[in-house]
C-alpha cells in the first residue's frame, strides 16, 4: 500500500456557533483520486479552505507528507506542493490565459525586485522557463491556442480548465479540485474525467469535491461522504452507492426508518 500523503486528524471548524466541520478524520494515500461528496453545506469547500490555509481550523491537525500544516499561510502551503482550483472561478483579471498559468510558476522561480528591475541574465532565462512550462500545461489541458486570450473572456468551461492548468504549473504533489464539472456540458465533463486520470498518471494525488455523481463514481478510487460536517461513510464508489445512510442524506429520508 502506498504512503499517506495527507492525514487529517480530529478536524473541527466552527463559525461562531455554527459547526461547519466536526471531528473529521481523513486519510489520502499517494496516487489516489479521492472524492469528497455531500449535500450543499456539508463542509466540503470549508475543508479545502482549511487544508490550503485560507481558514484556520478550530481544532485538529493536518499532516502533509509528515509535516504539520497548521499555522502555515496559504502561500507556504502552496510551496510545499498543495495546489487547488476554486468553486467560483478565481482567475486573475486583466491577464492573459498564459500569464495566469505563469503565475503558477511563482513559487518555483525566484526573481525579486532588483533582478527583475535590472533584467539580469538569469532572470530572463527563468522567465523563459516559466513561459515554456506554462505553455506545456496549457497544451496538456487543451488550451494551447487560447494562450494569449484574456483569461476572463474565455467561456466558463475553459476558465475552469484554465484554473486546473494554473494549479498544475505549481508542480503540486496534491491537487484539490473544487467542483471542476460545475457549469460544464456533458462532453466537457467526459473529457474532464479523462483529464483527472491523466493528472493522477503524472503522479499527482487528487482530491475531488464534486456534485456530478457520474463523474465521481467514474474516476474515484475512494469516496468520503460528509453531511453537516461529519463523515458518514467512506469507501470505494460501489459501496458508497449502496450505503443507506448516504442515500438518506441525499434524499432526505429517515435513515433508521426503513
Amino acid at each position, binding site marked *: 500500500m502506498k504512503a499517506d500523503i495527507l492525514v487529517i486528524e480530529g478536524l473541527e471548524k466552527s463559525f461562531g456557533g455554527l459547526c461547519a466541520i466536526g471531528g473529521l478524520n481523513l486519510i489520502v494515500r499517494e496516487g489516489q483520486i479521492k472524492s469528497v461528496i455531500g449535500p450543499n453545506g456539508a463542509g466540503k469547500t470549508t475543508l479545502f479552505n482549511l487544508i*490550503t*490555509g*485560507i481558514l484556520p481550523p478550530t481544532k485538529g491537525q493536518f499532516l502533509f507528507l509528515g509535516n504539520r500544516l497548521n499555522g502555515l*499561510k*496559504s*502561500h507556504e502551503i*502552496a*510551496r510545499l506542493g498543495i*495546489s*487547488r482550483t*476554486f468553486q467560483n472561478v*478565481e*482567475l*486573475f*483579471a*486583466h*491577464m492573459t490565459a498564459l*500569464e495566469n498559468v*505563469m*503565475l*503558477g*510558476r*511563482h*513559487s518555483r*522561480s525566484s*526573481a*525579486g*525586485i532588483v533582478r*527583475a*528591475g*535590472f*533584467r539580469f541574465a538569469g*532572470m530572463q532565462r*527563468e*522567465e523563459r522557463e*516559466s513561459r515554456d512550462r506554462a505553455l506545456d500545461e496549457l497544451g496538456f489541458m487543451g488550451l494551447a491556442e487560447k494562450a494569449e486570450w484574456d483569461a476572463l473572456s474565455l467561456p466558463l468551461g475553459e476558465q475552469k480548465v484554465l484554473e486546473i492548468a*494554473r*494549479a498544475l504549473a*505549481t508542480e503540486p504533489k496534491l491537487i484539490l479540485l473544487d467542483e471542476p464539472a460545475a457549469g460544464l456540458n456533458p462532453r466537457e465533463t467526459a473529457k474532464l474525467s479523462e483529464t483527472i486520470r491523466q493528472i493522477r498518471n503524472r503522479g499527482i494525488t487528487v482530491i475531488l469535491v464534486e456534485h456530478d455523481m457520474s463523474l465521481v463514481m467514474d474516476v474515484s478510487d475512494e469516496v468520503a461522504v460528509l453531511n453537516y460536517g461529519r463523515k458518514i461513510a467512506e469507501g470505494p464508489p460501489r459501496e458508497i452507492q449502496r450505503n443507506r445512510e448516504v442515500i438518506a442524506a441525499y434524499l432526505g429520508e429517515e435513515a433508521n426508518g426503513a
Partner: protein
Amino acid sequence: MKRKDFHALWIIAAVIGIFPWAAGGNQYFISLLVFLALNAITALGLSLLMGYAGQISLGHAAFLGIGAYSSGVLTTQYALHPLAAFVFGIFLSAGIAFLVGRPTLRLKGHYMAVATLGFGEIVFIVFNELSPFTGGPSGLSNIPPLSFWGFPLEGISFLYLVWAVFFLLLIFSLNLVNSRVGRALRAVHGSELAAGAMGVDASQAKLQVFVLSAVYASISGSLYAHFLAFISPNAFGLMFSILLLMMVVIGGTQTVWGGFLGAAILTLLPEYLRGLEDFEVLAYGAILLSVLLFMPQGVLEGVRRIASGRKERGAR
C-alpha cells in the same frame, strides 16, 4: 519593457534633450522641467503602489522630506559628500517604509492610507521641532549643489541628471511590471485568494512595492534639496502628499506612464493657467473635476479610448 514603451521613452528623451537649447537656456523653463521630473519620479513610485499593489499612501511627501532632509542636514551640518547623504536618505526611507508598511500591509483594506496619513503628520512635526538639525519652520538653507569630482551640477546639467534618473527609474519600473514580481502584484490585485494558493505572499509583495515607492520619493527629495539649496517643512506636508496622489489618479493607474502623465499635467497646468490671474484656482479645479468625471480611469486611458473609438468609426 515593450516596444511601445521604448518608443515613448525615446520621444520624451529627444524632447527633453533639445528643449533647453531651443528655449535658449531660459532659467524658468529649466526649473519647470526639473520640477516636472522630480514629481514624475515620486508619481512613478506611487503609481506602482496604487496600480499594482492597490494601496493608497497619504504620506508620500514625508518620504520626499526624509530624502531632502537627509541630503540637506548631512551635507550642511556634517559636511558629508552629497552622494553619501543621498544613499543614506535612500536607506533611511526604505527602513522607515518597512517599519510603517510591515504591520499595516498585513491587514486587508485601507489601513495603509490611515497609517501613512498619521506617519506623514509625525514626520512633518519632527521636521519642525528638530530645529537644531533641520532649522525648524524657517527651513534649512545653503545646501550645496550635487557635484561629481568637484564638478557641480547646476542649470542644464542638473536638468539632464534629473531626467536621466527619471528614465532609469522608469525603465526599472517597466521591467518590474513585466516580470514575475509585476505578475504577482497584478494577481494579488485580481484575486488575493488565488494568488495565495499559487504561492504568492501578498503582504510581502505589497510591502516590497511600498518600500520601493518610498525609495523613489527619497531620491526625488534629495535631488530637490540640492536643486533649490533650501528646504522647509511646508513643502513636505499633507497637501503635497495629496497632490502626488492626484497626479497618479489624474494620469491613470493602469500603467506606470499614468504617473508620468499626471505629474506633467499637474506641474504644467498651474503655470499655464497663471494668465487667468484670479480665475486660476477656479479653472484648475474645474479641469481636474472634469477629468475625474469624464475620464474616471485617468487621462491616459481616457485618451486611449477616444483614439481607439475614432479608429473604429473611421474604419467603417
